């Protein structure tokens, strides 16, 4: 009998036991069952012009991913199980076709008075997540859940302490390294000033096989570069949020002990070194009527938090370092997105929003990030103007200027990219807003028509050259959405290069809690970021379809 099947039986058995106990307490409490399902399918259409050459284009031709999550809540008990499936998937690593399926997540959670106990897989974080964050992003193929046990004690609304021990998940298994952590937070104040203060502690212990591998590698280093690696990495953090009226100020300092880490040099070679690390992060926000200010500063020095030094790229990350860049959503302004560099960076970001009145507002952002040796990594100047022209027409326009260290962020040689990207967007509601009588059945509701245009132009002499982008989207809310777009390589970096079109079409249909999408797309190779976590992806050409629902 497989361990996964055994786990499922244990969960189901626990549900039965819990239910029996609850029935003794209350015959009426049948609990609450909820869940969600998502299935994504991709068909790969090889296009040698844009450089689609990964294995799916050559061999498998299609892939499927699926997630089915069930939650059952009853009288303080919570049972969660998620079935994951990856068939020839490029999601976790775009260069391979990964196939695997099974119980991707399971959890039993029980609240007893001021205590909460969790066993199985769990997501969590300490403070901002700089020290520890267990999280997932299925669209980047990331799942940093911890498998183990967790206890939380919350004696009152102002104090919380929790601790856990476990191993980080590695797809359907776990990394052999062990981790444990403690976190305490307290809310307090002086007069009108309120504070949320916290401390966190994390310990990660290497397994013997990893230590043997490290020792052999260190024994192969030149004599003056050898060091004795530590089995245990200890890290701690202290953080505080101060709130006073419209002003909020966050500070965090995290330090980790010396351990073996791989450092990437300017030539993209990796060198094993024995280094401690630290992060200092501070951010202040202030809002007053139509004015908003957000200023952040962050300094990172070799704060590489991985379950093992041999975990590659995005594998085995135990924390989350927030990026100091504006999170763009438009196609060309987001083309060169960045993630925080755990090996080291110093950066500052300032964003000002100002609303002249209810119809006109501005957004200005400046980001500047450099390496500890003062090599520039990223610089952004961003200005945006939003105007509500009428009840039916909204307009947005702006410009972005970037400096982007291609070699560092993309992991292979390339010039520093300089861009200027003006952008324009207009949304027009067609017809008057519908007034829907209370109690109208959903299928009887009239569809609200609207149309949206996007125009963007990215000018650069580096990387692939300049692009123009246009999108037209027609919506029949809340059910239908149709979009066509094209990203046109209008001035390639090399005059001899072809001027390629990366066009895409997209249809979505929503019925109650269910949504179906399908689209044909060509996507330029580059960095794909979600929430400040980025991955370099090859070019894409093909059809993507998905169906998702929750209940």
């Amino acid at each position, binding site marked *: 009998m497989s361990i996964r099947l055994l786990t499922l039986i244990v969960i189901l058995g626990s549900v039965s036991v819990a239910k029996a106990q609850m029935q003794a307490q209350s015959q009426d409490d049948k609990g609450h069952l909820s869940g969600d399902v998502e299935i994504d399918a991709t068909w790969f259409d090889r296009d040698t012009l844009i450089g689609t050459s990964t294995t799916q284009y050559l061999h498998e031709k299609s892939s499927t991913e699926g997630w089915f999550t069930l939650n059952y809540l009853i009288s303080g008990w919570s049972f969660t199980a998620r079935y994951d499936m990856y068939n020839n998937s490029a999601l976790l690593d775009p260069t391979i076709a990964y196939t695997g399926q099974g119980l991707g997540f399971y959890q039993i959670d029980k609240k007893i008075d001021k205590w909460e106990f969790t066993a199985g897989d769990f997501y969590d974080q300490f403070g901002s997540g700089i020290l520890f964050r267990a999280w997932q992003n299925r669209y980047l193929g990331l799942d940093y859940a911890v498998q183990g046990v967790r206890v939380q004690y919350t*004696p009152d609304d102002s*104090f919380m*302490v929790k601790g856990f021990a476990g191993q980080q998940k590695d797809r359907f298994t776990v990394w052999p390294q062990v981790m444990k952590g*403690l976190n*305490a937070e*307290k809310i307090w104040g002086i007069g009108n000033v309120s504070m949320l203060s916290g*401390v966190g*502690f994390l*310990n990660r212990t290497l397994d*013997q096989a990893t*230590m*043997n*591998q490290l*020792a*052999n*590698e*260190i*024994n*192969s280093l030149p*004599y003056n570069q*050898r*060091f*004795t*690696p*530590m*089995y*245990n990495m*200890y890290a*701690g953090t202290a953080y505080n949020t101060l709130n006073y009226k419209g002003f909020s100020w966050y500070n965090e300092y995290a330090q980790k*002990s010396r351990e073996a880490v791989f450092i990437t040099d300017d030539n993209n070679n990796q060198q094993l070194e024995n280094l401690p690390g630290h992060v200092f992060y501070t951010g202040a926000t202030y809002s007053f009527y139509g004015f908003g200010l957000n200023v952040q500063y962050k300094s990172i020095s070799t704060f590489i938090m991985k379950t093992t030094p041999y975990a590659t790229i995005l594998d085995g990350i135990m924390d989350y370092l927030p990026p100091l860049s504006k999170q763009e959503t438009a196609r060309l302004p987001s083309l060169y997105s960045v993630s925080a560099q755990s090996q080291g960076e110093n950066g500052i970001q300032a964003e000002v929003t100002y609303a002249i009145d209810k119809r006109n507002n501005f957004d200005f952002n400046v980001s500047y990030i450099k390496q500890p040796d003062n090599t520039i990594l990223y610089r952004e100047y961003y200005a945006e103007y939003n105007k509500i022209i009428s009840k039916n027409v909204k307009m947005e326009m702006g410009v972005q200027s970037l400096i982007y260290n291609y070699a560092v962020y993309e992991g292979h040689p390339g010039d520093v990219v300089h861009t200027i990207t003006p952008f324009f967007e207009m949304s027009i509601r067609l017809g008057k807003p519908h007034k829907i009588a209370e109690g109208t059945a959903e299928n009887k509701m009239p569809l609200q028509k609207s149309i949206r245009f996007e125009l963007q132009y990215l000018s650069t002499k580096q990387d692939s050259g300049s692009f123009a982008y246009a999108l037209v989207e027609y919506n029949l809310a809340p059910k239908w959405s149709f979009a066509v777009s094209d990203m046109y390589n209008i001035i390639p970096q090399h005059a001899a290069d072809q001027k390629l079109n990366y066009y895409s079409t997209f249809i979505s249909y929503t019925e109650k809690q269910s949504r179906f999408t399908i689209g044909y797309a060509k996507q330029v190779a580059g960095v794909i970021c979600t929430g400040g976590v980025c991955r370099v992806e090859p070019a894409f050409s093909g059809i993507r379809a998905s169906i998702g629902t929750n209940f």
Partner: protein
Amino acid sequence: MNKIFYLFSLLSLALVSCQEVNDLIIYPKPGQNDLLSIDTTKFASVPAQSKNVLIEDYTGDRCDNCPNAQSASITIVNANPGRVSVLGIHCTGLAAPYTGYPDYRTANGTQLMSYFFGVGGPSSLPTGAIDRILQSFTSPPSVATPYALWSNYVTSEMALTPKAALTFNNKNYDPSTRTLSTSITTSFPTTSADTFYVSAAVIESGFRGVQELPTRFDSNFVFEHVLRKLMLPYNGLNIANSPIAGTTVSAKFTTILDPSWNADSCKIVAFVHHRSAINNSVEQVQEIPVK
């Protein structure tokens, strides 16, 4: 509540102060970075020789089956006097020293192990290489050869005709300074399109130490052919590219023997070999006592 907060902080500090023991890292001793270099002194051409064979025995004092491999190599050496040389390369965590006993691993031996098996080392010990020939029965092909097969492969290797002949010239050992020097001279009896390298090592036999056996620890175990020093470059000094027949090249060898080694039981082992992704095979090997 504050007490819990302070207790938490104290617990964190207490955990950080714990000390660890890790004896897996080898720190070099003086003279361990000795280099082979081309010797411009002209020596006489070396006459053609019969093919000798090199056994590299990857072993460890915490590997309970490794004494069987050592026994196999001794049997082969005794059955073929002067025709077989052995390097007993202690490596990986299975060769970590016992408390109060020396570390038999060497930095350059570990580099050599990584060169053939990756930084993690062989999948298991003992294992060996016979003239560094790639074995097709492993996948992917590897030099790893189980000790039970060593004798067969040694016999077939000895039947070959070597493309190089090897000898030692001007060997000298100064007991007062423990300085050992020689020239390793290689001649090529036939024209060849290959590239050739020479490697050299010091081995010691007959000393006693602790060895794990299947059922017990033997604190009086006699170690044989133990690699004490592998000269750099650990994977060979380039001595000839496409040599014509009659070419003779010498490499200079100078080192200082560690005071803990018994010079009477030490030998120099030198061998000529190839070095590429697909061929690291040994053409010829010779050994000579230090004293």
